C-alpha cells in the first residue's frame, strides 16, 4: 500500500480547498449522505434544468481529505452533464474504485479522467472506499429525487 498514491497532491489540494461549497442558487434537488462509522456527512444541492441537465451542483460537508476531495472533484466533473451522462460517469467511477483501474466513461475528456483517477489510490484502502463514494451515491440520490438519506452502511 502506498500513502503517496492515496494522498496525491490533487487530493490534498481539493481536500484543503474544496470547490463548489455551499448551497447553489435555485437548487431544485438535494440529498444528504452519512457515514455512521466515521461521522462523515455530505449534503448535495443540485439544480437540474428542464431538460434534466445538471445546471449547477454544490455541496456542504464535513469529513476526511478523501471524502471532501471526492465531492469537490465530482462537482467539477459532473457540472453541465445530462442526467444520463452524469449517471454514466458515476458508474464508471464506482467501477474504477471497485473493479477495474480505469475510467471508461465517454463523457469525460482525458484531463478529466486523470483528475478522477487521482482517487484510485483508495482501492488499496478498503476502509476508505466509502469516504470516496459517499458523495457520489448522495448525488445520485438527489438526481433521482429519492427522499431517504444515503447511509454508507447500506451501500456496497
Amino acid at each position, binding site marked *: 500500500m502506498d500513502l503517496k498514491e492515496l494522498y496525491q497532491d490533487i487530493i490534498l489540494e481539493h481536500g484543503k480547498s474544496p470547490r463548489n461549497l455551499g448551497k447553489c442558487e435555485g437548487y431544485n434537488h438535494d440529498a444528504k449522505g452519512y457515514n*455512521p462509522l*466515521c461521522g462523515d456527512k455530505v449534503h448535495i444541492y443540485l439544480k437540474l434544468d428542464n431538460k434534466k441537465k445538471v445546471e449547477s451542483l454544490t455541496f456542504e460537508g464535513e469529513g476526511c481529505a478523501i471524502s471532501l476531495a471526492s465531492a469537490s472533484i465530482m462537482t467539477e466533473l459532473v457540472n453541465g452533464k445530462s442526467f444520463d451522462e452524469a449517471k454514466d460517469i458515476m458508474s464508471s467511477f464506482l467501477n474504477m474504485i471497485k473493479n477495474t483501474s480505469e475510467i471508461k466513461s465517454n463523457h469525460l475528456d482525458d484531463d478529466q479522467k486523470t483528475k478522477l483517477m487521482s482517487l484510485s489510490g483508495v482501492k488499496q484502502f*478498503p*476502509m*476508505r472506499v466509502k469516504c470516496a463514494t459517499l458523495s457520489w451515491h448522495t448525488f445520485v440520490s438527489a438526481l433521482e429525487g429519492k427522499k431517504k438519506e444515503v*447511509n454508507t452502511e*447500506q451501500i456496497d
Partner: protein
Amino acid sequence: MDVNEIKSQFPIFSKKINGKSLVYLDSSNSSQKPISVINRLNNFYKNEFSNIGRSIHSLAVNATNKFEETRVSVKNFINAKFKEEIIFTKNATEAINLVATTFGQQNIKEGDEIIITELEHHSNYVPWHFLRENKKAIIKFAPINNDGDIIIEELQKLVTSKTKIIAVTHLSNVTGTIVPIKEIVEIARKKNIPVLVDGCQSAPHIKIDVLDLDCDFYAFSGHKVYGPTGVGILYAKRKWLEKLPPYIGGGAMISEVKKNKITYAPLPEKYEAGTMPTAEVITFNESIKFMESIGINNLMKHEKEITDYALEKLKKINSVKIIGNPKNKAGVISFTIKGIHPHDIATILDEDGVAIRAGHHCCQIFHEKMNLTATARASIGVYNTKDDIDILCKAIKNCQKIFDLK
C-alpha cells in the same frame, strides 16, 4: 464418508475419560469441535486479533472482512437471500428472544394468540411466555401424539383470526422428530401468520433451506454445529428486520445519536449492539467449511446409519423403552430403563466413558405429556461410530447388572 478419518479431526477423542475412550453421545447438547475450528480461533487470537467495524487500522479491517465473510457463509449455508438477513447473537435462545420481544412489542396485544407445540424446548416457550405475562397474550400448544409427531390437523384447528405467530421446532431435541415445517408454513401463509423455526437441532443434522421452507424466522446456535460457544444465528426475512424495532441498544447499532433523538443503523448492524463475539463469529466460518467438507448428504446418510443401528440394538435390550417413534427421525434417542432412574444411568454410563444426558432436556412440557419426569438421551454427531453404540449398549447392560435387573 470415512468416519474414522473424521473422528481423527477431533482432538478430544484422543483423551481418556475415567480411563476409557470417550464415547460422546451428547451432541444435541453441544457438539465437539474439529481441529480446524480450534486452530482458527487460536490463530485469530494469536495473529489477527482486533475488534471489528469501529477502527480502520489493518487489524480491524481484516477482522471486519473476516466477520462479514462468515455472514456470507451462513447465508449460503441456510440459503438465505440477503446477507443482511443474518444476525449474530450469543445463542439461539437470544435469537428467539429477539424475535419474541421485538415482534411482540409491535404486534402482540391483549388476547392475541401465539401457537407453539408440545415438542418445544424451553427456549422456544419462555420468550413467548413473557408476552403472555406482559401483554396478556395467549399461548396455545399444538399437541403431539404418542409417537412424538405434531398432529398437524390439530395445529391447524388452533389457528384463529387472533393468531399472531407460530413458533415451532424443526427437529425435536428429545425424540428426534423432524417436523414438516413446510406444511405448517402453508397453513400459516393462508392467514398471513409469520412462522419462527427453532433450528437448533436441524442446522447440524439436515439440509437447511430457508427460502424453500419459506419461514419468516430461523434460529440456531453455532456450538451445536461444530462451532465455538458464544455464537447464535438469527435468520429473518429482511422485511421483518426493517420493520421491527431494535432489540439490544448500544454502540454499533446506531446511526445518529443526539440528546433528544437517536436513529438506528441499517441492517444487519441495527441488531448487533456492542462488541460482538468477534473471534467466535470469525471462527464459525470454519465450522461451516467443516460441514461442507463432509457434505450434508453424506452426513445425513452416516447419522441415519448410526441411528438405525442404535435403535435396532437398543430395542433388543428388554427393559429399554425408546420414547417416541416419529415418522421422520434424526439421531436423537431418548429412552428409559425400567427400574433405573435416568440420573443413575448417566452416572453409570459415565464410568464407561459414555457421555449421555439425563433429565428433561429443557422440555418439561413434553415429559409431562408423556408422563415422565426424566429420560436418558443418546444423541448422535457426525463422529459417532457403530462401536460407540456397541459400547453404549454394553454400558446399559452394566446398569442392569448393578441394579440387579439382569
